């Protein structure tokens, strides 16, 4: 099965080609069918490949084009040659796909969640007139690119996927391009991502100069054995991390993600929550051995991650648009993943990536269902009391919310707790305290979200009266993701809570693929008081989350007197948070206006000096061309004469 790995990204690409190029002639049913089937088939293949990887891998050896590394549980599939520049030591970039526990997890998430969201989109986009096929073509293209990103065995292939998902993100954010603010949001996402991509590309080039190879397995082996200079590794890591900051929306480049909510809600669920934005986390974990060469690199990752986690959580508390709340929540959760990776707990970061993909997709699809029911309304102020009208959506969102809040035994509890424990166990107390505070805020804002949508009195009675549960094609994926947010965390129950066993299946599964086995350095259970301390820390974070929950309940449901005073006290801060601390204005004043001024100045120089020179040269060339045309008389006798002259000249040069 592993030999067929190339079909995994190819199927969605083929789907995109069919739906995109022939969409005009396909019925809506057929277009949606092809799109969903291609992703579902890719999921089936991914599942097969993962089973083959987990089973008797030696049996797969010897298949043509497949290299197997039994010790690292890794299979590399050579698909085709691509770039070959220079001889030995030149740049080689064949299409090679890498299947190891890490990429296996990623392709399962991408195709699994992707298939559910494709299905959901059929219902959500049902009212779309002209863009229906275009939507599914882009969505399929995205899945293919994302699979290429996570399967790429070398950085150039990874980069193709990296740029490809950025392109699809742009196309889908600006899907409603007739609305100017949607098109603007698409452009903003693309441009901000370019900043990150420039850093990423520089990082790749630096890495090639320092390590001499771009194949990921060779690169990591070289980095782990000290074959890469520390300073070069630091520079490359930080540049690559700039790319991750752009793609995964961390401080200071997170500004595009909230605006990206201009796209259709399933897109927000798939691209801007579950998969694409996690590409940065995946990349850092994939190159963990490189980031580990210089301690400063991981320190920067952890610092930015935790800062973003806390900062975005405060903004999420004050937003009133349901998709904006979820967007800032995504930024914050990505921060947690980076925090985990930054303290060396790559396994915990990937685990959180997986659970987050499940519960955040559930939340977004739930939000989409609400928006669908309310005919496009996104303001929480006009919602409320929808619980009885939309029971499936309600329960899904409650499950998702509890998972996000980190309440035992929902999915988010185990993964977030593992990151927190890795930070504490690794001795990073300040990081731990910040992350803990962020967890409290998370519980608060997500409870606020659920309470304001589904409980209390409707903000707009007429709107609420027309609300209805979504059709089955939307409700089923929703329920599936809701169910997964409940049980998804059980794949990674930490050892301390396993009652003597070891239920951390995902940790063990990922260990061969990650630097240091995916555990935080010095953070193994046993130090710092061992299992008891871990349970204590878990109880503490549970208590903090409980506080957040209770506060939200007191404010919006219980309407207790003491709780009411808190927003009044915090009013100025809340106003700033609602405006996202005016960071967009700050960027405009600090970057965009000076840049525009510089451009205007450069334009004057260009128009005067540079163009003047160029035009002068061009004029000369043109005059020369004009003169030359007089030689073209049209008479054969003249041409023959020139032929003779040419012959004489050649003989003159050739003869000694």
């Amino acid at each position, binding site marked *: 099965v592993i030999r067929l790995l190339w079909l995994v990204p190819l199927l969605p690409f083929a789907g995109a080609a069919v739906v995109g190029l022939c969409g005009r002639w396909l019925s809506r049913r057929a277009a949606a069918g092809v799109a969903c089937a291609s992703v579902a088939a890719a999921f089936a293949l991914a599942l097969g490949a993962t089973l083959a990887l987990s089973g008797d891998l030696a049996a797969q050896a010897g298949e043509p084009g497949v290299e197997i590394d039994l010790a690292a549980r890794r299979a590399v599939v050579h698909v*085709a*040659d*691509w*770039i*070959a520049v220079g001889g030995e030591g030149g740049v080689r970039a064949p299409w090679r796909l890498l299947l190891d526990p890490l990429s296996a997890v990623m392709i399962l998430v991408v195709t699994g969640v992707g298939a559910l969201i494709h299905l959901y989109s059929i219902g959500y986009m049902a009212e779309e007139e002209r863009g229906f096929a275009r939507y599914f073509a882009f969505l399929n293209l995205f899945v293919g690119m994302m699979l290429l990103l996570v399967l790429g065995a070398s950085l150039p292939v990874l980069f193709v996927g990296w740029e490809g998902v950025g392109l699809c993100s742009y196309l889908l954010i600006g899907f409603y391009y007739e609305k100017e603010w949607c098109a603007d949001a698409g452009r903003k996402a693309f441009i901000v991502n370019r900043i990150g991509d420039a850093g990423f590309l520089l990082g790749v080039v630096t890495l090639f100069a320092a390590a001499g190879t771009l194949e990921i397995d060779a690169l990591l082996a070289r980095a782990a054995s000290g074959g890469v200079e520390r300073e070069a590794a630091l520079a490359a890591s930080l540049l690559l991390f700039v790319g991750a900051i752009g793609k995964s929306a961390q401080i200071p480049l997170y500004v595009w993600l909230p605006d990206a909510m201009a796209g259709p809600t399933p897109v927000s669920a798939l691209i801007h929550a579950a998969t694409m934005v996690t590409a940065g986390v995946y990349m850092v974990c994939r190159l963990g051995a490189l980031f580990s060469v210089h301690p400063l690199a991981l320190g920067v990752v952890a610092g930015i991650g935790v800062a973003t986690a806390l900062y975005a959580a405060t903004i999420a508390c004050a937003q009133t648009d349901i998709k904006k709340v979820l967007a800032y929540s995504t930024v914050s959760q990505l921060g947690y993943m980076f925090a985990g990776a930054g303290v060396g707990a790559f396994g915990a970061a990937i685990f959180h990536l997986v659970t987050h993909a499940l519960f955040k997709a559930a939340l977004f699809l739930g939000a989409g269902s609400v928006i669908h029911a309310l005919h496009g309304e996104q303001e929480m102020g006009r919602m409320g009391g929808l619980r009885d009208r939309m029971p499936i959506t309600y329960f899904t969102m409650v499950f998702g919310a509890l998972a996000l809040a980190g309440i035992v035994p929902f999915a988010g509890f185990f993964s977030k707790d593992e990151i927190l424990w890795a930070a504490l166990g690794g001795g990073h107390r300040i990081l731990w305290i910040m992350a803990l505070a962020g967890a409290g805020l998370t519980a608060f804002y997500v409870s606020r979200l659920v309470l304001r949508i589904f409980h209390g009195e409707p903000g707009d009675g007429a709107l609420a009266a027309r609300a209805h549960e979504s059709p089955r094609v939307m409700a089923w994926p929703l329920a599936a993701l809701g169910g997964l947010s409940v049980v998804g965390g059980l794949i990674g129950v930490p050892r301390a809570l396993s009652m003597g066993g070891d239920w951390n299946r995902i940790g063990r599964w990922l260990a061969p693929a990650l630097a240091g086995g995916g555990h935080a350095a010095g953070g193994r259970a046993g130090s710092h008081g061992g299992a008891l301390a871990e349970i204590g820390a878990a109880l503490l974070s549970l208590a903090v989350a409980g506080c957040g929950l209770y506060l939200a309940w007191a404010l919006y449901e219980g309407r207790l007197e003491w709780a009411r005073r808190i927003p009044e006290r915090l009013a100025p801060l809340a106003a700033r948070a609602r405006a996202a601390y005016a960071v967009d204005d700050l960027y405009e004043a600090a970057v965009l206006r000076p840049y525009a001024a510089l451009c205007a100045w450069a334009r004057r120089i260009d128009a005067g000096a540079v163009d003047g020179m160029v035009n002068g040269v*061009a004029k000369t*060339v*043109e005059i*020369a*061309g*004009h003169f*030359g*045309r007089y*030689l*073209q008389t*049209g008479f*054969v006798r*003249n*041409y*023959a004469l*020139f*032929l003779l*002259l*040419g*012959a004489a*000249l*050649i*003989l003159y*040069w*050739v*003869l*000694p």
Partner: protein
Amino acid sequence: VSLSITWPAVDWAALVPALVLVVGASGLLLAAAGARAWRRAHGYAALGTLVLAACASAAGWQTPRSAFGGMVIIDHFGILASCAAYLACALAILMSLTYLEREPGIPPEHYGLMLLSTAGMGLMVSSLNLVAIFVGLELLSIPLYVMAGLVRTRLEAIEASMKYFLLGALATCFLIYGIAFLYGGSGSFDLEQIALALDHAKGARSRWLLAGLGLLLVGMAFKVAAAPFHFWVPDVYEGSPVPVASFMATGTKAAAFAALVRVLFVGFGAGALLEWRHALTVLAIATMAIGNLLALGQTNLKRLLAYSSVAHAGYLLIGVVTFTSAGVESLLYYLFAYVLMTGGAFGVVALSSGADPDGRERGAEIEDYVGLGGRQPVLGLALCLFMLALAGIPPTGGFVAKFYLFRAAVEADLISLAVVGVLNSVVGAVYYLRVVVAVTMRQPGRPALSAAEPGALACACVGLAMAGTLLLGIYPGVLTRLSAQPLF
């Protein structure tokens, strides 16, 4: 008394591609005498013959050998070069299918002649013997003289045919004269023997050989349209039917360059290296400069493409001057890319042009293409793609080809030549982009040409060229893997 005759072992297999083409061409010419009505069927038959010949040619890939005492050489270089010629011919036939519908003046003999000429190209690039090369060259040229003037009622066509014939005959004189000198100096037509003779020659004998080389260069430079032997090019391309112009621009160029490389590398690689490299360097610079400068002022797309083909001959000469295997590889790559993008551009012209009621051809002026992107988006896109490819802009084969070529030049320490090439590319971009601007950005000032709805096969020509141009630009490995084998 029993009489037994022992036949010499003749390697007929080596001749199969040429035989297929010649037999097919003869059949078509005979058929044209009888069945003139089904012009399309002639085209399909020609296409089928071509595919057969290409398969026969490719069949020799695994077994490089020499047959008929060096008269026919089966090697990778020859096969790749013939394939470039077949590709040029295929594109020309595909565009003829539509073009001949609109031009009833062109008789169906057109197809047979085109196959004959292609057979000449195949022979010319797979031989080490000057006589065989000369025969191939003539087999290539004479059908072309005829094809240029097949429309006997059109004055421009007659003029083109006449000019091409007169000047071609003059150039052939130089070529045959040079071959005679070389035979006189070495006692052989075989290039390897000539190389040996050149090694040992002294005094007057060496001078005879070098004079032979010089005259040979004149004849070849005429065929590849290097300056100052290029004057016929714009006049002939303008007057000939579009498919014929395309075939001349692509097929002849590919075959003549391949033959030039083989003659110079095998015959004169050791003894007269300095002399011909010096002469060709000057020719390359002059050809690039003249081609590009004169293209700047053109308002007729066919003439523009003619000068563009002159400019590209200049770039290709750089590949010859390198005298390295990397240079030859890049030259082959460039030939394929050039065939695709120039053939494609002519294909668009063939699709959009047609004759006025008063017999004057329309659709050749750049003005006719203003706003094409709005009227026929696919055709407009195709023309833009080919122009960008000719200008050497990624992600097209034109970019990769230039990149390989200039890199080969730099590696061969011909940095100044590479710089001249790059500067010329800049000038080239001006007139190519002018066409792109006309197609996409300008509004038509005069009533648009009412182009017929192109048929599926005509689209196949443009589509094939587009796909190939993009493939070579995105996936250079498809060709470099083949040409990386030892060539000859």
